[in-house]
């Protein structure tokens, strides 16, 4: 009995201490990790949304509260020579493996999509990962949010053959970003004037 108790106590203590140490480490590194994500994941995807912006959208980003979920969202302004050409918002949709993150640029003048860039995905290499290729992404440029659905759903997007779920996930992520944009549009335009 004593032996069993000792086993339980020791293992519980070790797990407890590690859990505590890890959660404090996670809190400590969270701001740095967010900055790294901005530099290495979201930053490059902005280049895919609108290749020729001239400002520094990562520096000029603003945080808004998504009224649908009450979570904070980053909004990136993309400017060409000081003129606001697009605002980019990251949306998420369920893919074949984990969520697909898509950076979607909206043109504030007519609310159409400027372009999309893939931020995070764990799709099957060679099949699902083709959603990041320019040919597929180009379909999203210059269409309205309503049109940004698969053809089977009444939209204009051709799904990639062999990667229907990944294509659907991308569309879902675009719709997600579209909802955030729709809800925050007034606030965003006010902030970036």
């Amino acid at each position, binding site marked *: 009995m004593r032996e069993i108790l000792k*086993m339980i106590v*020791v293992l519980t203590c070790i797990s407890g201490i590690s859990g505590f140490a*890890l959660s404090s*480490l996670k809190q400590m590194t969270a701001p*740095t990790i967010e900055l790294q994500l901005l530099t290495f994941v979201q930053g490059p995807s902005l280049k895919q949304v609108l290749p020729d912006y001239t400002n520094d959208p990562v520096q000029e980003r603003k945080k808004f509260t998504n009224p649908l979920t009450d979570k904070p969202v980053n909004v990136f302004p993309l400017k060409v020579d000081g003129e606001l050409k697009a605002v980019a918002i990251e949306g998420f949709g369920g893919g074949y493996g984990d969520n697909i993150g898509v950076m979607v640029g909206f043109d504030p003048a007519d609310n159409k999509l400027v372009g999309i860039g893939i931020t995070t995905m764990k799709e099957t290499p060679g099949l699902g990962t083709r959603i990041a290729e320019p040919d597929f992404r180009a379909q999203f440029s210059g269409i309205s949010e309503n049109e940004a659905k698969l053809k089977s759903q009444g939209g204009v997007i051709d799904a990639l053959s062999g990667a229907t779920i990944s294509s659907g996930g991308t569309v879902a992520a675009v719709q997600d970003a579209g909802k955030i944009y729709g809800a925050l549009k007034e606030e965003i335009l006010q902030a970036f004037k």
Partner: protein
Amino acid sequence: MAGMWKEFSKGLWAELPPFRLLLGLCPTLAVTTTAENGFGMGMAVVFVITLSSFIVSLIRKIIPKKVRIACYITVAASLVVAVELLMQAYAYPLYQQLGIFVPLIVVNCLILGRAEAFAGKNPVHLAVADGLGMGLGFTLSLTFLGAVRELFGTGSVFGMEIMGASFEPVKFMVAAPGAFVALGLILAGMNYLSIVQAKRRGEPAPENPSTGCHACRACAGRK
């Protein structure tokens, strides 16, 4: 001091983890496409194995025999998550390159092997020396293998052009089969060296120089 040096240095040559003990081969084969990746992976392992040897040795007297493996795994897993967080915070491109192989350090048999065979039975200073030596040996091996593959596969080492413009890269070397071929050739080289050394000392050439329990003190029972 002499004891510490002995435990430290054995990991650098006599018991070089991937090439002598043949432990931790999965990351050795998978991430060594470039010297830099091998080095980064090695440093992550150095961090985990040194600290896990330290902690395991520190608490070896309070760990009940029957749950020791679970305790070792908990310690190693916590350290690996710490490495993952730190790597994301300070070396994100490396984290993207290594991907799944960082969390897989938990089940790297090298970590558990050293905890079970050495740190669980020896005082703290020897355990740290052993962990550091093994970790550095692992790093050296991975960097070397990565450098060889990068040199022939892309013509550069650590991203620096070595072979000149006329060199036609052997793409095969940076693909998965190239890892096996390069590792096999290095192992053959290590065995050849052992045979030559033994002959020079006037001993009969060992039949199978790099494997077999007699060659490795990892399993030798120490107090």
